[in-house]
């Protein structure tokens, strides 16, 4: 896996490669971007490229260092993953101790911290001095989806590199090639994934697509006259532990589509383009205010669930409001 295997981030890769070529790799990088766009992949490739014996500014995946990094047993490349819910101060202290030594066999010591926002306040502060002036031959790579959760002092000590969401075309291509779905399904998956390749893989496995279909069917069938059905639906949704967040996203996307259609946007912007007829029909039924209200309701429910509210109650309230 060399830099050319990181897809859809040409600009970012270009910046990194030039930094390697010009021998201006900073001691601290911060990779920003949504989930599933290739940040960690890039970080690992960078670690390999810095240590590779064969290629000057890329990884060959053949030489010893590259293979060790791929297998996760290179002594100079550490990945600090959260222990439980957060990255603890002891992990950072351990990291600082190990960074004091010169590279053991490679050229550079590389430390990758995925989910850097999971550092708790103590560990985030304790990494500051290291991040500012690490020992020579050290490169720290912090990765996060939400830089606003990091200390401003961390943000300021790193060179920031923003990763963009992948395009739908690219995702559908990858899904078609790697998972072997047909053209239509891959496109459908791509537009639902919203630029997130991991999500696209998730969607292409299992029954997520069918789940969305059922969800849309149900939400359209809801009526204020049949309160029982609403409650049953809420119960059913609340049982889907894994998919609940996804389900709310589906619902949001659905009403967003109707709204967008109502505003007269081109059809290729629709996320659920396969339900065009339904969207057309419903866009006549709802007013813009209605739709905005519905989206707000789903949003509120989403926030409430993030704050650990009772799932079933929240969903009941949400659906009850939605069908009014």
């Amino acid at each position, binding site marked *: 896996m060399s830099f050319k295997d990181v897809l859809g981030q040409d600009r970012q890769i270009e910046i990194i490669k030039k930094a390697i070529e010009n021998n201006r790799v900073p001691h601290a990088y911060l990779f920003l971007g949504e989930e599933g766009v290739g940040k960690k992949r890039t970080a690992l490739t960078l670690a390999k490229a810095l240590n590779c014996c064969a290629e000057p500014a890329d990884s060959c995946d053949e030489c010893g260092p590259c293979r060790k990094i791929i297998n996760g047993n290179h002594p100079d490349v550490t990945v600090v993953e959260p222990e439980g819910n957060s990255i603890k101060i002891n992990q950072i202290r351990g990291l600082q101790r190990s960074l004091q030594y010169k590279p053991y066999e490679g050229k550079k010591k590389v430390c990758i911290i995925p989910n850097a926002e999971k550092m708790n306040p103590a560990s985030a502060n304790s990494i500051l001095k290291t991040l500012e002036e690490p020992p020579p*031959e050290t490169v720290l790579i912090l990765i996060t989806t939400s830089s606003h959760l990091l200390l401003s002092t961390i943000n300021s000590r790193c060179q920031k590199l923003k990763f963009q969401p992948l395009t739908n075309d690219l995702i559908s291509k990858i899904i078609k090639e790697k998972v072997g779905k047909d053209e239509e399904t891959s496109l459908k998956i791509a537009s639902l994934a*919203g630029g997130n390749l991991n999500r696209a893989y998730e969607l292409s496995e299992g029954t997520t697509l069918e789940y969305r279909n059922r969800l849309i069917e149900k939400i359209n069938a809801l009526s204020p006259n049949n309160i029982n059905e609403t409650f049953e639906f809420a119960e059913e949704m609340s049982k889907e532990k894994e998919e609940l967040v996804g389900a709310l996203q589906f619902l949001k996307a659905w009403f967003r589509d109707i709204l*967008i259609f109502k*505003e007269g*946007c081109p059809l290729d912007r629709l996320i659920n383009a396969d339900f065009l007829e339904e969207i057309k029909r419903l866009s006549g039924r709802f007013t813009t205010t209605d739709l905005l209200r519905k989206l707000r309701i789903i949003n509120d429910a989403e926030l409430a669930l993030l704050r650990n509210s009772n799932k079933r109650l929240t969903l009941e309230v949400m659906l009850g409001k939605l069908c009014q």
Partner: protein
Amino acid sequence: MSYLVLARKWRPQLFEEVVGQRHVTKTLQNAIVGNRVPHALLFTGAKGVGKTSVARIMAKALNCQDGPTPLPCNQCQFCKDISAGVSIDVLEIDGASNTGVDDVRELRENVRYLPSKGSYKVYIIDEVHMLSNSAFNALLKTLEEPPEHVVFIFATTEPHKIPPTILSRCQRYDFKRIPTRDILAHLKLIVSDEKVQISDESLALIAREAEGSMRDAQSILDQAISFAGKDIGYDEIVEILGIIDRKLFYETSLSIIERKPQRCLDIIEDVYNYGYDIKEFYKGLLEQFRNLVVVKVAEAPSMLIDLPDSEIEDITTQGALVGIDEIQQLFSILANSEEDIIRSSNPRLVMEMTLVRMAHTRPLLSIDDILCKVDNLEKKLLNLNNEGNAAAYMPLEKPQFSSPSSQTAAISEIEHLEDTDDTQPSEAESGIKGGDTKETWLNLIGFVRKKRPLLASILELGHLINMDDGKIDIGLKKNSVLMDSINEPQNKKDLADIFMEFFQREMALNISVIVPDSDSASILKKNGKGSDGVRKLGEEALNNPIVQDAINIFGGKIIEIKTKQV
């Protein structure tokens, strides 16, 4: 040799090299000259403004071989050691990694020993806000009266986390954000030294993006150099920073103001496809609205908006299209969605919805406008009422007053507010007949209430027996207070006057006594029904054999009969 980033390479080594913190450096230098160096210093301020750097320079100034001197030589062994971070008399401690009370105890042990080479032992504790409470407390005594040879320098971005007992023992120096023009000047210095070609415009862009932090500015420049080499163009900076073209913000706010939701959605699509960060876009848009407010309020907006004059002019033109209340309203919608956008896993969707909502918002009227409208309405209503009264209550003499055309003209102006009004005149028109009698009676009571509320209450409690041309019969219960009251000459006269006014002619008031039984005589059946029913029920209850038995058995008597409300 590993590459040193610009921020480290250009870390100031002398007081004069520190940018934008003259108020601090000058004070410290004077303190050294006057031999008034405090034993504890606290440096606070935002990230990347020079706290740690000044702390190190201060250590040098104290320990330089000519020292203490306001102008450390940066040549002698002492200075070099400090720059390299290997001096044994200057201890730089990471306050965030050594947070515990044990670390402080160890420090206290060592404080006693004299410096080995220099004249001072300097303890620099960076990120001091992370020390634990007990660690801070363990430090208090030492901090208050340390040995003569010791100087403590604390640096932190979060002074509010430091206990007041520590704060009061330190001399505090607040570092300011560095003004954009100072950053710009310093960047120019760097690029000329690094032999990099870059336009002033690009440097200004970097300086602005850095938001007052020198380190941020330097790392952006660093990135630009490593990406573009020694010749950096404006576009490359824009690309690296992912800076969104300001025209997009301008267009977005315009589309919102012009209420074109579709255009807004198009812009988001472009932003997204280009790979811009939606959160970044959000921030920029928020600032755009802020600027719109500023140009409307401020006398010299260029002082408050960090943009070229031409762009400020554009914003001013746009600002002229809308009222300040409207911008404020839009701004608050936008600001309220901040949490949603930042937290959301799909910020694009939230952004779209926010913009559609904004574009669909109907402009708020200012309170003044609303008051003005209410005033107008009130006046119209008054006029209408006068007209309406005339029309309503003189139909017998002058029916032409209530001709539909004049009515509708007046009514259409106040629209739906007056639902009841447009039925009233037509009724009066039809005269006091049959079912309308009740209506007229109620209207009459309403009319009386405005003039004499007391009399209206009496009328309300009484029963209308008959209302004919020029005569009103009212029944009141025997011996009731109402009877006495209405019979007072003054009240009678007033009532007559009010009737005169209402009906526009003489109405004789005839008050008769009614026995409760004869309630059924009242034409207002509804009123009568209640008391009538109650009476009947009471009798029934009395005659009920069980009740009779109860009275007989217990030898009781009936005091009250209550009906159960249904």
